[in-house]
């Protein structure tokens, strides 16, 4: 493995694009330190190397991870996703979450769910749920309650419009402080959104015009910087005379 760049206690690859195989940290040079590795990084004996192409990020003091963006989704625990119901089996719903496998949503995984009040979801229902089981091999499992059993906005999403994006854009939309494009749009239009980390976004507003405006603005903002997003959103709003 090539060990010249980035092999110091403070890696100089932070915020840079890395590819699989890049060595980020050399553990032999660091003693008595705890490092937390997020997604896309792996410990290879004495080195921390990159597994996924993307941008390396550091959250002081010691959290490293790689931010990448794909069109397909790899299920992870505790992610909130938007799923589409495909089928209703006796004890769970089969839900598509853009993962390699269909996910199972147990029929009872709702607030106050019993055998008597099983929700009736037909094929094509949009669901906002949370991933509770995800390993590489088995079908992932979802739940429409939070950890304490409350509904907490999970469940079926009615009306509105759903579109697909990359996972990177979905994460950007969920970042805090608020994503610039959402902020700029929110100043003039009132709308609600649900963002799934699997690359699906649901938008709802009072009129179809607004929904279309918001959805197009979001789709266009993927590769723009913060200021560019704001400018783009404002231009769009102006064009449709909302300001």
């Amino acid at each position: 493995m090539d060990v010249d760049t980035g092999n110091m206690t403070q890696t100089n690859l932070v915020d840079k694009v890395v590819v699989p195989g890049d060595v980020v940290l050399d553990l032999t040079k660091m003693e008595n330190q705890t490092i937390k590795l997020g997604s896309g990084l792996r410990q290879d004996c004495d080195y921390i190397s990159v597994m996924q192409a993307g941008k390396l990020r550091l959250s002081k003091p010691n959290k490293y991870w790689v931010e990448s963006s794909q069109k397909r989704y790899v299920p992870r625990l505790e992610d909130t996703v938007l799923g589409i119901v495909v089928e209703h089996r006796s004890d769970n719903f089969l839900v598509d979450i853009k993962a390699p496998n269909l996910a199972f949503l147990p029929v009872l995984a709702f607030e106050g769910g019993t055998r008597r009040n099983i929700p009736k979801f037909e094929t094509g229902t949009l669901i906002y749920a949370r991933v509770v089981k995800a390993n590489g091999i088995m079908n992932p499992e979802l739940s429409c309650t939070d950890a304490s059993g409350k509904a907490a906005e999970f469940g079926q999403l009615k009306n509105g419009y759903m579109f697909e994006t990359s996972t990177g854009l979905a994460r950007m939309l969920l970042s805090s402080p608020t994503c610039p494009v959402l902020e700029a749009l929110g100043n003039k239009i009132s709308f609600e959104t649900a963002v799934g980390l699997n690359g699906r976004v649901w938008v709802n507003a009072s009129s179809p015009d607004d929904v279309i405006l918001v959805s197009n603005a979001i789709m266009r903002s993927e590769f723009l910087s913060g200021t560019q997003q704001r400018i783009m959103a404002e231009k769009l709003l102006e064009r449709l005379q909302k300001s």
Partner: protein
Amino acid sequence: MEQRWANTSRLTINEKQFIEEALRSEIRVDGRRLYDYRRLTIKFGRYRCLPRATILSCKCYHLRFSLFCCNCREDGSSEVQLGETHVMAFVTGQLLQPYRDRPNEGTLAIFTEFSPMADPSFEPGRPGEAAIELGRVIDRGLRESRAVDMESLCVVAGKSVWAIRVDLHIIDNGGNLIDAANIAALAALSTFRRPECSVGGDDNQEIIVHDPEVRDPIPLTIHHFPIAVTFAFFHEGNTLVIDPHYKEEAVSGVRMTVTVNSNGDVCAIQKAGGEGILSGDVMRCLRIASLKASEMTTKIKEAVETYNAEVALKKVKRHPSLIAQKITVPDVEMKEASFQKTKELSADMENSPNQTSTSLTTTKDKDTNASIGRPLNWDPYSSSAPAIVSSSTLPELVGTSKDANEDQMMQTDEEYDPNLKKDQIASATGVSSGIHKQNSPPKSLKDAVKPKHKRKKNAERGAR
């Protein structure tokens, strides 16, 4: 089974309801108006960078010829993007026997291939229903409206006609494949050039297919451009949109494709889907379609003209003396002609027959290991054995000078023989000092090409 489910793309109830609701207020999800097309991009000639080994799908009449027709692979291919829909078309020609009931007309065939990367529901292998439908609609629009002139494709009536084959490859399905594929087919047909051929030979029955370097290939005669315009119907036929994208297609269920040309002639109509539409709607569609067709025709024609201008410009840059030198086209039929010509050239060469035959036969090998530029194909018995080799570049030049005749043809296409090209440049700039020493050599084109050296070369050339 679940694996298959996980792969198909789905439509939610929300989307379905929303798209229909938005259409009630006459807005579409991507911000277009009802009768707007998405952005159209047409590109041509993307076939250039294919390695020669894979080019031989063009089964031209003559084997030798096919190796040289790399040139024509730039023509006759187009890449169309209509919004997210991405389609490529390739046009190739082949000499075949005509159909028995139409002995003096060429044939046009359309093949479609739905790549599995275009859509999760496309399976590799035999074309499915949608693929066949697409091919059939486009075929009807192009062939039965007689857009392409078939009679000019006849070479020898009853025996040999040009069979034009259009291959459509769907790269990305963003909705409205028919329109995009139709545009791609028209664009590719407009830029396709078929080699010129003449009837001759001993008994006036042999067909000689001329190399594109010898005689410019000819374009097809296209009388008119049939443009396919697809409509999708919603709300039981009350609302119709043009150029539906993927989701709109899935929601609507009723689709009608109208193929018209800019003169207003209706070439084909096809309606697919469960619900019925009123005859008044059909007439409305025809009217809208003829407007759209003229716009689209202008766009396609502009794109084709820009491309043709570019190609013509590139041709001008060819080295002027090259054009005159295509003597030994190593076709079997042409052997006689070339034989005579090279005889003229190397009048003082005793073993010129030997020369030509070796160079003819060895060209084949030369092709396969082209651009190596070693002094292969040496005829050890030829007196032109270039013993005089002073510079390091000479071996190449020497080796190729004999086959310079054949090589010249390949030289115009840079990808072929970079070494030869180097020869070209080297000789043009008069670098190769050793060349002139080979007197005996076939009045090589090298000599002609290097005006700087050797009066006597010029004198000999004058004598030719």
